[in-house]
């Protein structure tokens, strides 16, 4: 029983990281109809940026983190939107999807060829060791991850629901035309979404890289999990991404422990396929009307 609870807690922590990526993924989809297949690379690049700032530039962790957020907002937020999404979205979803696939391969190989093909260690911001709560032992890393990811999610939800800008962003996501008629600056709101996605990716990188190690192909796995999470929860629901992320994380842990480590991914994958086939709008999603 204690084992089960521990597995669920650590699974939730991993799932929280997936949820951060999935959240960015669904936000991009809602605001601009972008399916970003390079989402995993959006986590890999900040991991290497942070390593660069820490190891080569010798900066402290928190400065490196803030600088990386800044660079990511410019590169993965603004530039990504202006150089790829804006010119391509007019052609429809498919060319953009193909272009993000190209971006994914390009960035991955660029890091492999130009930086390193080896996995780089990355220190966790949380101390090692276990926190004992009675019989229950939880690592500080899991607790820290849960708290930090939770804070990010709560502040993001508060921003989206309580501020004028946040509500304007939601309006854009729900109906671009009406939003424009109401005098909302649609282009700016969409840009904000891209910036938020960039920052979420940096946070995910900060949390996941200590376990995954910084490697050119680390994004493949995390991108895939974020993708499962987004679809399982519901592509057009921010809450869905959270549920999906946690579900994927917990299922992975339980499958690894009780069924077979080789099929760690298997159950989440099956859930993903079942959801696509029987409830394509996702567990929490609403049936999507065609976006005009």
């Amino acid at each position, binding site marked *: 029983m204690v084992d089960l609870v521990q597995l669920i807690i650590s699974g939730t922590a991993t799932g929280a990281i997936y949820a951060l990526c999935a959240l960015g993924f669904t936000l991009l989809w809602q605001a601009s109809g972008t*399916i970003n297949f390079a989402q995993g690379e959006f986590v890999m690049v900040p991991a290497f940026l942070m390593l660069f700032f820490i190891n080569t530039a010798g900066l402290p962790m928190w400065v490196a983190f803030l600088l990386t957020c800044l660079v990511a907002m410019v590169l993965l937020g603004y530039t990504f939107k202006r150089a*790829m999404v804006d*010119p*391509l979205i007019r*052609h429809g*979803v*498919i*060319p*953009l*999807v*193909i*272009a993000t*696939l*190209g*971006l*994914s*391969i*390009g*960035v*991955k*190989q*660029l890091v*492999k*060829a*130009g930086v390193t*093909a080896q996995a780089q260690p990355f220190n966790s911001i949380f101390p090692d060791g276990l926190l004992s709560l009675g019989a229950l032992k939880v690592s500080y890393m899991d607790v820290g991850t849960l708290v930090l990811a939770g804070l990010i999610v709560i502040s993001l939800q508060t921003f989206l629901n309580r501020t004028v800008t946040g509500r304007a962003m939601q309006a854009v996501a729900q109906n671009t035309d009406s939003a424009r008629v109401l005098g909302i600056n649609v282009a700016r709101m969409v840009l904000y979404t891209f910036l938020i996605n960039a920052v979420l990716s940096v946070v995910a990188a900060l949390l996941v890289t200590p376990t995954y190690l910084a490697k050119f192909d680390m994004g*493949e796995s995390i991108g*895939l999990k974020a*993708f*499962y999470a987004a*679809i399982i929860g519901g592509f057009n629901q921010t809450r869905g991404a959270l549920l999906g992320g946690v579900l994927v994380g917990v299922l992975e842990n339980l499958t690894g422990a009780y069924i*077979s480590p*080789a*099929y760690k*991914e*298997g159950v989440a*994958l*099956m859930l*993903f*396929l079942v959801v*696509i*086939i*029987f409830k*394509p709008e996702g567990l929490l999603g609403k049936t999507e009307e065609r976006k005009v």
Partner: protein
Amino acid sequence: MSKTQRIALVIGLVLYAVLPQFLKSYGVYLMTLLCVYLMAAFGLNLIVGYAGQMSIGQAAFYGIGAYVAAILMTKMGISFWFALPIAAIACFVVGLALGFPALRVQHHYLAFATLGFNVLVFLVMRNEEDLTGGTFGISNIPRPSIFGYSLDGALPFFYFAFVSVILLAAVLWWLLRSPWGRAFAALRDNPIRAESTGVNITAYTLLAFAIGAACAGIGGVYLAALVNFIEPGQFSLSVSLLMLLAVIVGGSGRFFGPVLGSIVVVLLPEWLRFLQDWYLAIFGFAVIVLMVYLPGGLLSLGDRFKSGGGTR
């Protein structure tokens, strides 16, 4: 096809047939690999270019074909000639079973389903060691013989694969020009009108998906016989992604698009060996540029200069 195009095609085929005579065995191997890869890519073009669906799981079918054939040939001693149709039918059936539920909900769900399916197939190949040999794969896959004539040598097998891919292409060409294939043109140009004239969109798309999957299965059987050794890494999700990019880069929905695209991802990296990992990096970014300026693929370049005359 215009007369010039027909002449160009014949010249191209003759050159391709003669060239291996002057190459070392690795060169012949690459040219054979291109033929094999093309079988799967032609199938993918049917799904992506003609039926307008995204499939990110073609390598899964490529792998199912290869594994079914390898298991039948090495463990049960069944001949290539029986393994080939069995593998093709297996892929066709699996394609129907996967495509039927996924295509009920249009949009990009076939893309998602094929993606998940590819990962699942990869996991099974890697983990079911008793059946698939796990990460060690299956080795010593025999090459076939035809009318008692062994195809073990590099050149004989090349000509075998070369003729096979031409036959496969001819069948697809014929299919696309049959009334069944014409329905695709109608679908692509105006789905609503096509549906109102009695074209059952879902059925047509599903059949195209299953036929495309069967083509990949056939390619997989040839691949197993060509390299004699298969392991899960040859059929991972990234292989599917690269194949999809190949078809789109070449020009999806153009019959010869996959040829150009497959050359870009199979042959070019070998000629440009000195670039190493940079090749794929450049390729990835080139795809983005291509999508922005030439979303129809490389073969649509001709249309830019003169309208009409396309081989769609």
